[in-house]
């Protein structure tokens, strides 16, 4: 890839995406071939908020390339707690590592970090902003299961604060996918994302009811609705219940519908969906390692 940093899915062209996915497929087929590819490299894991799975998959990816990782540890035990700025923290860690993976609770944090360091910065989630490496593994999963031709995707749940949704929606504009967004009114896509989709000429429709579109979908991407987003518990329960899928609901879907979720889930996908052929969310999570290996291989 030509980019120095991976900050947003907006910077990824179709060619970039396909290069990563092709490389990931090669690596998944023959992991041994790259076992020592980056054995002199160190990846800095800067996680300002907890994320077991994203952190572990970067850790695994780097180690499977023969490299190693260093970890700044939990925010509670670090200098950040003492009021150090993000700009200072990344400038220090830059001296220890060949690239930085950053997860931070504030939007725009990865962009800011990239302005202070010369090593590549990979955005592993900035607040409600972007999560481009998740998008690449989502796209890998979509390509494996549904392909990119004539694709219709439904994205359901918390579309307002869901950074994985924001990144995926941008990326799908490269493939002329038809996108259906399903959410409660209060959690619809933010203005900035709608603006970008419009600018990209994307085919977009918004709904409040999944049943309006379910049977037309190749892929249903479900995200979690967080309790913290609602002022009171009742309001949350009412909304969350309407955006929950189970095996019975999926009977009206196409047989080859792929159901995805950027885990962890709480109760938006009933356990009985796990037993159906639709469930691809664990496979999706596993794809994180080869996709992040491919990305690191191309960027380091």
């Amino acid at each position, binding site marked *: 890839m030509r980019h120095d940093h991976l900050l947003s899915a907006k910077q990824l062209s179709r060619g970039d995406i396909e290069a990563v996915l092709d490389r990931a497929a090669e690596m998944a087929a023959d992991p041994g071939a790259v076992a020592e590819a980056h054995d002199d490299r160190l990846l800095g894991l800067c996680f300002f908020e907890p994320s077991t799975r994203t952190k572990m998959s970067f850790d695994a990816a780097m180690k499977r390339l023969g490299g190693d990782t260093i970890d700044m540890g939990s925010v509670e035990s670090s200098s950040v707690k003492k009021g150090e700025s*993000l700009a200072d923290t990344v400038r220090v860690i830059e001296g220890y590592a060949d690239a930085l993976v950053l997860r*931070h*609770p504030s*939007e725009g944090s990865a*962009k*800011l970090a990239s302005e202070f360091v010369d090593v590549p910065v990979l955005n592993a989630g900035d607040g409600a902003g972007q999560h481009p490496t998740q998008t690449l593994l989502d796209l890998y999963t979509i390509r494996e299961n549904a392909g990119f031709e004539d694709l219709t995707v439904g994205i359901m749940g918390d579309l307002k604060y869901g950074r994985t949704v924001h990144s995926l929606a941008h990326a799908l504009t490269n493939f002329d996918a038809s996108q259906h967004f399903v959410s409660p009114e209060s959690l619809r896509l*933010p203005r900035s*994302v709608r603006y*970008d989709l419009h600018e990209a000429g994307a085919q977009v429709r918004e709904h409040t009811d999944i049943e309006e579109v379910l049977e037309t979908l190749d892929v249903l991407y479900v995200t979690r609705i967080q309790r913290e987003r609602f002022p009171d518990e009742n309001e949350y329960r009412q909304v969350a219940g309407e955006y929950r899928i189970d095996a019975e609901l999926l009977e009206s879907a196409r047989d080859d519908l792929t159901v995805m979720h950027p885990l962890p889930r709480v109760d938006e996908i009933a356990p009985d969906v796990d037993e159906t052929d639709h469930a691809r969310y664990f496979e999706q999570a596993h794809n994180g390692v080869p996709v992040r290996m491919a990305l690191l291989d191309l960027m380091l």
Partner: protein
Amino acid sequence: MTDTELRVSKIENGTVIDHITGGQALNVLAILGIDGTSGEEVSVGMNVPSDRLGRKDIVKVEGRELSQNEVDVLSLIAPAATINIVRDFDVVEKHRVSRPSEVTGVLSCPNANCITTESEPVESRFEVLEEGVRCTYCDTIIRESIAAHISVE
């Protein structure tokens, strides 16, 4: 000189900002960081009749010539403004404002979760869209009442 222009006093050296969108004069002063405390001599005409705009505001600042950066930001809230630089009572330069592609350090991001609102060593930065502006860091778009987000020390 028209009647309208006579409503506010002539200045010897400084800047006359004319054709400001009616009601925006105080925001223009905010952008320029003028609050009267440092003794500048300022005349403000608000909602005076204008052939071009119906109603317009005028700001005259004695002893101060505007920088390009300041003029750029004015364009966001007063797109029709004209800038007259006055020396020895004569207008020596006349500029129309033009929309910049970006404004730096003038607006503050309305997204409380944006990294630029924390104590980081960066200035805010906004891309200027056809309608409104957009934070370069968090992508938040401001369309309505841009002037409310002006943060000049």
